[in-house]
Structure formats: structure tokens, C-alpha cells
């Protein structure tokens, strides 16, 4: 199993894109939390954070597609197209791949609803976008369970970093939500935070 040959290329490609997808999905979650709390990144206006969240999502989806397609095409194990979509039906590690399939389905729901966002109620879109919080940990457990790579060395370190960063972002999000300003008071809150300048005549 050392060295890339014509028989192992797909296997390596699937493992590598899996790692990259995990990293990108983590960035997507972090940016999503930032967008939700109307947070800013240094040097970027608010709408650019939203744009970054969308574009990194697109990149993650591209890597995810390659990860899934190469895994299916790899002759070494038999997974099958159906098993990529229907959880726990794979011929190889059905439980761990099943978690990945659920994660994939949830992400597909996020993509479809985000493309149709202008045509659906905001409430429904939001409700489905909450699934993002379920897709990410499923992907983490899928990585740990289905790949020995993720259980040691650099990849384990990266995965731990992802988990820590997401946990920190979630804690920050909850603390922000706890002191949320009601809609009607938001403009007043901004006005009161502005530096006092001499006004009037």
C-alpha cells in the first residue's frame, strides 16, 4: 500500500480530498457562525464575510464531490453509488460510511435550499440551514471511523484543531445569543456605541 500506482491513485485521491473537505467544512461552519452573529473579519465588510462563507462552501462541495466519486470509483472496495446517498448500505464499513452518507444528504439539502432561497420563506430556509450543525460532527465521526489516517499523526492533529476551533466558535455564538439585542433596539444600540461628537448649535 505504499506508492501511488494506477490501482491506488483513486484510493489516495479519496483520502486526500476527504481531509481537505473536512478542513474546508470546518472553515464553512466557522464563517457561518460569524455570519449568523453578524461578526466581522479584520479588513472585510459584513457582506464579504457572507460571500466568503458561500464561496468556501462551494469549494468544500467540489472537494466533497471528488471525495465521494473517487471512493465509489475505487475498485479496491465496493461502495456503490446508492450507498453514497442511502446510509448504512455500503458493502465496506457500512456504519462509518453511513454517517458520511447522512452528512452528504444534509449538505445536499443545504445546497438545494440555498439555491432556492429567494423562492422560499426565510423561516424554512433557516430551519433547514440549522442542519449544518448536524452535518459537521457527522463528518468528523465519519472521518475518525472510516479512515485510519485520521486516528494518528498530522491528520489527527488537524482534526483535533477543527474540533477545538468549532467548539470555541459555538461557545462564542451561544454567549453572543445570550446577550442579543432585540430588533427594535438594534439601531439605538449602534447609535449609543458611536463615539460622542459635539452636536447641536
Amino acid at each position: 500500500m505504499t506508492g501511488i500506482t494506477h490501482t491506488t491513485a483513486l484510493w489516495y485521491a479519496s483520502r486526500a480530498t476527504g481531509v481537505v473537505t473536512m478542513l474546508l467544512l470546518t472553515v464553512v461552519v466557522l464563517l457561518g457562525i460569524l455570519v449568523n452573529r453578524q461578526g466581522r473579519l479584520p479588513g472585510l465588510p459584513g457582506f464579504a464575510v457572507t460571500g466568503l462563507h458561500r464561496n468556501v462552501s462551494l469549494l468544500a462541495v467540489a472537494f466533497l464531490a471528488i471525495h465521494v466519486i473517487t471512493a465509489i470509483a475505487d475498485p479496491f472496495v465496493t461502495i456503490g453509488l446508492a450507498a453514497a446517498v442511502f446510509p448504512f448500505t455500503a458493502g465496506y464499513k457500512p456504519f462509518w460510511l453511513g454517517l458520511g452518507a447522512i452528512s452528504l444528504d444534509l449538505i445536499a439539502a443545504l445546497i438545494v435550499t440555498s439555491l432556492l432561497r429567494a423562492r422560499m420563506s426565510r423561516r424554512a430556509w433557516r430551519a433547514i440551514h440549522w442542519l449544518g450543525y448536524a452535518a459537521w460532527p457527522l463528518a468528523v465521526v465519519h472521518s475518525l471511523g472510516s479512515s485510519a489516517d485520521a486516528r494518528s499523526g498530522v491528520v489527527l492533529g488537524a482534526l483535533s484543531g477543527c474540533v477545538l476551533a468549532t467548539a470555541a466558535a459555538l461557545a462564542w455564538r451561544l454567549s453572543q445569543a445570550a446577550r442579543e439585542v432585540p430588533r427594535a433596539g438594534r439601531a439605538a444600540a449602534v447609535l449609543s456605541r458611536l463615539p460622542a461628537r459635539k452636536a447641536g448649535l
Partner: protein
Amino acid sequence: MTGSLTVPNPPVTAAPPGRGGDLPRLLPASGAAPVGLRQHLDAYGALPTARSPGRLLREVAAAGLTGRGGAGFPTARKLAAAAEARPAPLVVGNGAEGEPASSKDSSLLWISPHLVLDGLQLAAEVIGSPAAVLYVRRNQRLHAGLAGAIAERAAAGIGAARVDLVQAPDRFLAGEESAVVSRLTGRPALPAYRPVRGLPRLAPGRAALVQNVETLAHLALIARYGAAWFRNAGTAAEPGTMLVTLRLADGRTSVAEVPLGTGIAGLLGLEPAAGHLAGASVPSAAGPVQAVLAGGYHGAWLPAAEAAHLLMAGAALRPLGASAGAGVLAALPADRCGLAETARVARYLALESAGQCGPCFNGLPRIAAALEHLAGPRPDHRARADLKRWAGQVTGRGACHHPDGSVRFIRSALRVFAGEAGLHEQGRCCGTDPRPFLPVPAARPASDADWS
């Protein structure tokens, strides 16, 4: 909260003679006392109900009636869309009148409630709705009067549709169409987060037809007298009359009914001299005027010398960013600081943000604070550039038109009061009277409950 507003019976001035020769149409020729049901029937005759809905629709289309709430959308098109919708949409008479500078809707509701209720009834008949709602600004006396009028009609057996009276919260955006619908479904009166296409929906499959109360009053008259009569007043492109709220330079306010296309100079008593300097103030019967606010707090300032030559019609005002819209005209006296006035209103507009769209609730407060700075002595030279840049960053970025309308108003001030801003930068100001001129409600506690 109730009864905190002044009673909506400002002196109603007789309108200047129009081309129709039968003005005023909506308000009695003299006096500001409510017109009772008997008096109403004597003056206008019984509510015509035998006409077929299709015929009334064609009549409204031929009359060219447009919405009098500010947007000016053709009423016939909205009615036709509602008549096709199944189940029949709920008819809503919108008298929220969140605009502090306007009192024409509450005056109309106070003085001629039966004309509005006639229109509400007719609209319900046209679209086949068994129920209607009258959504009215929070005011105890006005609500008592309307409840009495509704009961009186029910007792007399006038109209088939049941009419419910609903109180509008005292907010600038409470009359925005999607905010009205939100309030009627029991939620806060906030504008929809995303733009509404077609009729707004109360629930899946149940639409609402929201019409301004003055529009409904005109509808009641078109049903009685026809399109040709309606077109006797106004211009060919913008027929009919409209109610205007006038604020003269001496602070007196009145509500008048004028044909569209009436000269602004006559309405505000401006006396423009030939060859008048563009930036100079214009004498009026109520004292010298430096600028005119047309269209309310989402409208635009115009230099008095320019406004004196304009007509109260969309065709004349729209290119200047102002509008005949909801019919607000205010003459700013020469001894007030236009920037200070604009800054006060801008702060109010910022605080009236629904707090839903970031560009609005982050941008408008910054703009308001910068305007306050500009209205003060020796402002930073960058203040005007900042304002212009921020104004561009806010426009078109809200779900409703609050940021756009607010920025239109503020930009017009930067244009019209550019000379004044220059004086401020040198540490001078031509405002000698510090009393506020434009009406701005006191800041209110900010909780979401204030919107219901």
C-alpha cells in the same frame, strides 16, 4: 400610549378652486366636525352596490386612480389582481400613517369616516371578500369615532362585509404593506425580511389587499360619479385630487384637498419674484422660506426658489427625488438651520429602523451621527465625504425601502444645504431660531413589543 397624539382635527382649509369646480370632494367644504351617517348619505347618496364588480373595476381603471399612501401604484391593477385571487383576499384599509409630518389620513378618518368605510365595503365587494379590516394609527378618540361609525352602519344594514378595527403601532414603518400584514397575523408590525411579489400573504393561500384609506375614499366617489367626473380634477397623466398636509413657515399646519398638478407656491403661500437667486429664500405670507420638504421624511428637500415653480404632481417632483406621494409639504423658514432639522429627523429615522437588515440598522445610525456632527459648530471637513460614501453603501441594501427613502432625504439635504454646511465648517450658522420645526416624536423605549 393612547391619546398621546394630538387630536386629528387640524383646521381644514378650503382648497383652492380646481378645474373640477366641485372641490373639496373628500372633506366637507367647511368645518372639521365628523360627518355623521345621515349627513354623509344626504351629501353623497346611498352606497352603490348593484353595479357588477367588473364594471367598477373598469371605471377605476378609466379614472386612473393611484394609491394615495405614497407609492402611487395604479389601484385598478391591484384590485384586478385581488379579484382574481382565490380564496378572496382580506381587504385592509391602511390608515397607519406612520409619517410624523402627515396627518391627512387621520383627518380624513376623523372627518369623513363613512367615505372610507364605503370604499372599504366596495373593495370587499369587488374582490368577493366577506371581511375587511381598518388599520388605524393609535389614537383613542379616532378609534372611538370609527367604532361608532362602523356600528352605525351595521345597524343601518349598510354593506355586506364585516369590518374590524385594528390599532397600528406608533412606528414610522407600521404602515408599510408587509408590516401591516405581519401585524394582522398577530406578529409585530415589521416589514417582511425579503421583498414581497404581488399581493402580500397573511397565510399560505390567503392574500391581503392593502389600500390607503384616502384611496378607498376616492374609490367610493368613483363608484358613485364615474371616471369622467374623477378626471375633472388633476392632470391627464395624474388625475383626481389628493389630500396634502401643509406646514407653513410660521408652523401652522393644515390638511387640504387639492387637484394633482396644483402649484406648490400657492399651497405654501410662496411669492416668488422673477429673476430670483437660486439659493435665496423666498418670501411667503407666513414669513421667508429657504427650502421646501416635499414627500415627507422619505422625500426630498428642494430649494424654495425651485419649489415655488413646481407643481404638486409626480411628473414634476419625481425627477428631483421628491414625490407628491403621501402629500406632505413643509416650508422651512429662513431662520432655521436646515442641517439641524435634517439631523433631528435622520436620528428619528435611524431609530425607526426595524433592526432586520444590517446596512439599515448599522448604517443609518452612523449617518445620523455624522449629520449631527455636521449640524454642529466647526464640523470635520471629512464629514460630508463620509456621509456621501455611507449613503451609497446603504442604498438598495434593505428588504424594505426604509434605507433608500432615508438616504434620499439626507442626500437632498446635503445638496440643498451645501452652503449651510460650508458656513458650519467656518464656524458660522444662519439658523437664528433654535426651536425645532419639523415634528419628530420623542425617542421611545426599544423593545419588540413596541411594534405590536
